[in-house]
């Protein structure tokens, strides 16, 4: 059944369809509608769950750990500063191997305070041991939300997962979404079984104990192995989902890449605009293609190597910045090719921070630089696009 819903609702519906039992959440723009919607589902008797209206995001993720440790399915949602406030506890969720699923309304971090879209919030949580998925549309938000539970709860993995939906562009935008039938979701996810030790008075266990140097690294290596396993399990779950619901997902999707000499790499909602741009350029005879990352953790190394190994220029477009080096995707893309005998020229384009629109003009600027690089011209490795550089350099004293 097709419904018209906002991106936040796609996360709320995923939780409802997955029959999540405990949702501790705290309001924050732009993800506030998720707890609002859950509260509504419960008030209407449409959802049999406990909503815990906590007093902070730190407590939201802490309560999520408590509930998940008890052995029930748990979901929550946040964004930006809220996700940053959770930071400390995110490591504990993954270290304790609890399959919590969290929707993120991807929003810029202060300062200056800004409520609009970029990916800095999730990128800053890259090393917390959570799997990371980025949705292009509300349909993807819903589907990835459902699949995240199946992936996270798989006994070969047992890691938490976050799904990024772009602030406002998705969170607040109504789109047509194919709503799965409850029985099909039940069939796909199966009954929730915690494949981990839980808090059970009949079988007492100590969870979250003190790890000395002679044990700590083995715990961390376990998380590493689980994240490696996730690469395979994600593919399996994507395939099962496609068989059941007829919607195909892949960690990395390549479009117009067969003969491309320039690849544009994107994540999240900018991929839609990128696709239209690539189509238009193809009509003009330009050999450009689109590579969309749906999964950022685990990093889809092998897929990117195989898709991009023969492409002369790769233009990474990203809504995050690691000051002092470049974007996070660019850094990993470069590292991915460093031991290969052949590597594309990899260029970084910092775009759309704090909700700045990513338009055809943005893509034109990216393409122009990429084409110059293709011709052998030396161009900057890290390029800030759609920025009034002159004004900033004047203030910073570089001119």
């Amino acid at each position, binding site marked *: 059944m097709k419904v018209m819903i906002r991106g936040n609702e796609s996360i709320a519906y995923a939780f409802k369809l997955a029959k999540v*039992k*405990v949702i*501790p959440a705290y309001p924050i723009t732009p993800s506030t509608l998720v707890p609002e919607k859950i509260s509504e589902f419960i008030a209407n008797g449409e959802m*049999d*769950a*406990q909503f*815990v*209206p*906590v*007093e*902070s995001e*730190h*407590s*939201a993720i*802490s*309560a*999520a*750990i*408590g*509930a*998940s*440790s*008890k*052995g*029930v399915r*748990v979901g929550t949602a946040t964004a930006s500063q809220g996700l940053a406030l959770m930071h*400390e*506890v995110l490591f*504990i969720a993954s270290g304790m191997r609890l399959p919590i699923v969290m929707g993120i309304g991807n929003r810029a971090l202060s300062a200056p305070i800004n409520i609009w879209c970029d990916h800095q919030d999730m990128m800053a949580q890259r090393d917390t041991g959570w799997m990371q998925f980025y949705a292009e549309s509300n349909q993807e938000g819903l589907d990835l939300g459902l699949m995240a539970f199946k992936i996270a709860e798989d006994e070969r993995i047992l890691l938490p997962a976050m799904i990024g939906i772009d602030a406002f562009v998705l969170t607040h935008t109504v789109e047509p979404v194919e709503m799965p039938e409850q029985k099909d979701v039940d069939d796909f996810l199966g009954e929730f079984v915690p494949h981990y030790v*839980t*808090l*059970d*008075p009949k*079988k*007492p*266990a*100590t*969870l*979250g*104990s*003190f*790890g*000395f140097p002679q*044990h700590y690294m083995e715990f961390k290596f376990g998380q590493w192995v689980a994240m490696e396993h996730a690469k395979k399990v994600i593919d399996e779950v994507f395939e099962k989902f496609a068989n059941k619901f007829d919607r195909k997902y892949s960690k990395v999707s390549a479009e117009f890449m067969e003969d491309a000499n320039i690849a544009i790499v994107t994540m999240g909602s900018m991929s839609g605009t990128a696709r239209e741009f690539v189509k238009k350029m193809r009509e003009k005879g330009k050999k450009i293609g689109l590579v969309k990352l749906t999964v950022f953790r685990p990093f889809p190394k092998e897929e990117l190597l195989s898709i991009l190994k023969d492409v002369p220029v790769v233009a990474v477009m990203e809504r995050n910045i690691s000051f002092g080096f470049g974007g996070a995707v660019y850094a990993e893309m470069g590292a991915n090719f460093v031991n290969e005998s052949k590597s594309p020229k990899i260029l970084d384009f910092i775009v759309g921070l704090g909700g700045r629109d990513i338009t055809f003009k943005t893509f034109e600027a990216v393409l122009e630089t990429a084409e110059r690089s293709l011709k052998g011209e030396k161009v900057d490795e890290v390029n800030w696009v759609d920025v009034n550089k002159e004004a900033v350099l004047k203030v910073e004293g570089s001119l």
Partner: protein
Amino acid sequence: MTENYEDMEFFAPGHGMCAGCAAPIIVKWVLKLSGPNTIVVNATGCLEVATTAYPHTSWRIPWLHVAFENSAAAASGVEAALRATGEKANVIVFGGDGGTVDIGLQALSGMVERGHNVLYVLYDNEAYMNTGIQRSSATPWGAWTTTSKVGKANPIGKLRPKKPIARIIAAHNAKYVATANPAIFQDFKKKVQKALSYEGPRFLHVLSSCTTGWRHDPSKTIEILRLAADTGLFPLYEIIDGDIENMRITYHPKKFKPVEEYLKMQGRFRHLLKNPDLVKKLQDDVNAWWEKYGYH
């Protein structure tokens, strides 16, 4: 009446807590009184560190540690999961004063305001003992700690009074709040039993001596704690349903002992004894408290 588990140990011997530490006495008795159908959430601190060195554990009931400041939130999640599945079990938090009165106060406030069915037990040794005796907001006026040092310019040590956490939590309309002292054992036991008998958020503020931080002879723990009650320095009372006006004092010392007797047994107060004015100030504060509230 529920089953009696007083002959059973749910907090196993062989842990790494110091000889003379009062916290294990508190924990072991709370668990004896709650029985095995109990889930414990423990804040980071001595108790957590010294009882769960992987792969060993001292806990014969399910136990969860998440972090320092969020035990009340983690317990909220455990309790919500119990409600979701319809299971019944005691959820008990053990937290020290740092994890409760300072960094964990927000999470605790939230837990109590939301009405979670959790018993929160604060074992208050009046400083950050796990990190090496730094002052907390539960450190009493006049105590030496490594961050309220005593010297020429500051002969007192900690300059601010102890935060009245029990009254703060009671002001949230908690179901049951009490201060307790393991050395006043029958009162302590009755309060634990009473707290366990109620539904809703409950809070026990239990004084717990620390031999290294208070600088006392490990064999004198109970003696010192008894003096905390008998000098009137740590009054024992209970408050039901947030009715602070009708706070009930549950232990009236037959004859108040001078605060000096409590101070002189602990190195952390040694400097005060050199200055009779400071001892008098403390005695005056105690007298004023009992004058104001002692009729309750």
